[in-house]
């Protein structure tokens, strides 16, 4: 079991007071805070080893390249990928999903095909597919939710068929925290030879995720939700698929050669090796190094311990919320299928009212749709307030949240 009080010492931001109140940060599903180890790794890189990566022959470029490649290897190890060739650094989950949409989707999907997207998905796993389907005319079949906010597996089984080429699904809902049964979904999809794209933004930072065990084809996640800086994220993809996919962005670094052919008056292009084929231009080197340090930090604490800690906080918070008459928890309260995200409503108040009220006490929660408007429509609610936990949160902070809500 981890000790959040020890962990908090690594996070300089928790010294911060907001209008005299001790900061309580319950907006971890949106973004996490950063430990000193990550901040110093980034600072140290800029102070001692900074240069552009790849194809520089000088010492600094060699050092920067080695660090940047090591970051890919660390991330591969973190999610049990076969090698760093399967790890593409992107800006975040959104860019990772767009990469799949505009490489695999643009080249492979036709008007005869179908894909499955869930109404539990974040807008970032809906909008790119809607955009592309307007060009390529493939059909999107949406799978809805049950009253408890769980994915409707019956509807999923009815939606999937021999035309399905891709299944897009969140591992964990960013609103309800419900953990989807990926093994079941992947098996059904693969039975129909469909690929599976998983939005792992809310799972990879919070629980052990093993891509081989889950057998997912694509996994997208963001660094900033797992202690790393903003602007760095990951697309995991099985090597065999990546080898056959065309690049997303074109430019420097992602080619082996660009040779002008005077006969055809064209440039003949040879793609670089994986994963560089998908990383055009100067990448976010310091972000990658920050992500590597974040991954090392998380691994040292242990993802099982983090998952257990968050589950205990969630169980405790749900019990305490139960004492408040005006509060309604949205979705299932079963902690065995939930991560550390609690969406709730307060009688006679809108979600933004509650977030603004809590802000007066230094308590940071998120309000609104959380970029998941269809999910709210499915559950028949306008907005939700979302409290989301991470490794540094404590039961005392939950007590403060409850005490503050009692004032309403």
């Amino acid at each position: 079991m981890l000790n959040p009080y020890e962990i908090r010492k690594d996070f300089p931001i928790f010294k911060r007071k907001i209008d005299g109140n001790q900061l309580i940060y319950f907006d971890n599903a949106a973004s996490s805070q950063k430990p000193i180890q990550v901040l110093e790794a980034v600072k140290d890189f800029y102070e001692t080893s900074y240069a552009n990566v790849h194809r520089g022959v000088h010492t600094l470029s060699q050092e920067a390249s080695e660090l940047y490649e090591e970051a890919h290897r660390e991330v591969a190890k973190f999610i049990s990928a076969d090698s760093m060739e399967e790890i593409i650094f992107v800006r975040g989950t959104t860019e990772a999903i767009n990469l799949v949409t505009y490489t695999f989707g643009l080249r492979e999907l036709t008007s005869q095909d179908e894909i499955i997207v869930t109404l539990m998905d974040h807008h970032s796993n809906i909008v790119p597919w809607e955009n592309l389907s307007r060009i390529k005319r493939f059909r999107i079949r949406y799978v809805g939710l049950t009253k408890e906010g769980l994915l409707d597996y019956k509807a999923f089984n009815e939606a999937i068929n021999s035309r399905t080429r891709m299944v897009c699904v969140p591992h964990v809902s960013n609103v309800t925290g419900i953990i989807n049964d990926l093994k079941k979904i992947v098996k059904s999809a693969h039975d129909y030879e469909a690929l599976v794209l998983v939005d792992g933004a809310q799972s990879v930072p919070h629980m052990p995720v093993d891509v081989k065990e889950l057998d997912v084809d694509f996994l997208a996640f963001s660094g900033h939700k797992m202690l790393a800086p903003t602007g760095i994220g990951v697309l995991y993809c099985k090597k065999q698929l990546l080898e056959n996919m065309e690049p997303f962005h074109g430019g420097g670094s992602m080619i082996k050669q660009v040779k002008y052919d005077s006969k055809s008056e064209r440039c003949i292009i040879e793609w670089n090796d994986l994963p560089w084929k998908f990383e055009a231009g100067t990448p976010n080197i310091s972000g990658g190094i920050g992500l590597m340090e974040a991954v090392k930090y998380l691994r040292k604490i242990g993802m099982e311990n983090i998952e257990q800690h968050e589950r205990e906080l969630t169980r405790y918070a749900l019990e305490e919320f139960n004492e408040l008459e005006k509060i309604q928890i949205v979705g299932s309260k079963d902690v065995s299928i939930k991560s550390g995200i609690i969406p709730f409503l307060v009688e006679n108040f809108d979600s933004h009212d509650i977030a603004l009220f809590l802000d007066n006490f230094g308590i940071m929660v998120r309000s609104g749709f959380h970029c998941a408007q269809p999910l709210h429509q499915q559950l028949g609610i306008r907005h939700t307030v979302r409290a989301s936990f991470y490794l540094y949160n404590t039961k005392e902070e939950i007590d403060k949240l409850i005490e503050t809500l009692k004032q309403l």
Partner: protein
Amino acid sequence: MRNKQTMPIQQYIARIEETCGEEKDFIIVLKYEKKEEAINKILKNATLIRSISGIIYDLKFQKASFRLYKNGKIIFKKLKDKKEVETLLENLLS
């Protein structure tokens, strides 16, 4: 030459956030260093409907109902667009 019409907004407002969705809310963040002055002006110009825990003030001004928070934030609901919010704020903070 300063535009007198937009002066209160420039003087007191740090940000106007528009929420997404069909029914938009507008969240106004007052400039930290001017928030006490702005809050006093708002409380003077608007009609107080009720106060909740000394933190939230339910107020009415012209035809708009809104909430003012002690830490310098305001939420307007059911307004047409940002222009309407700006016009209200200009009058409210004059």
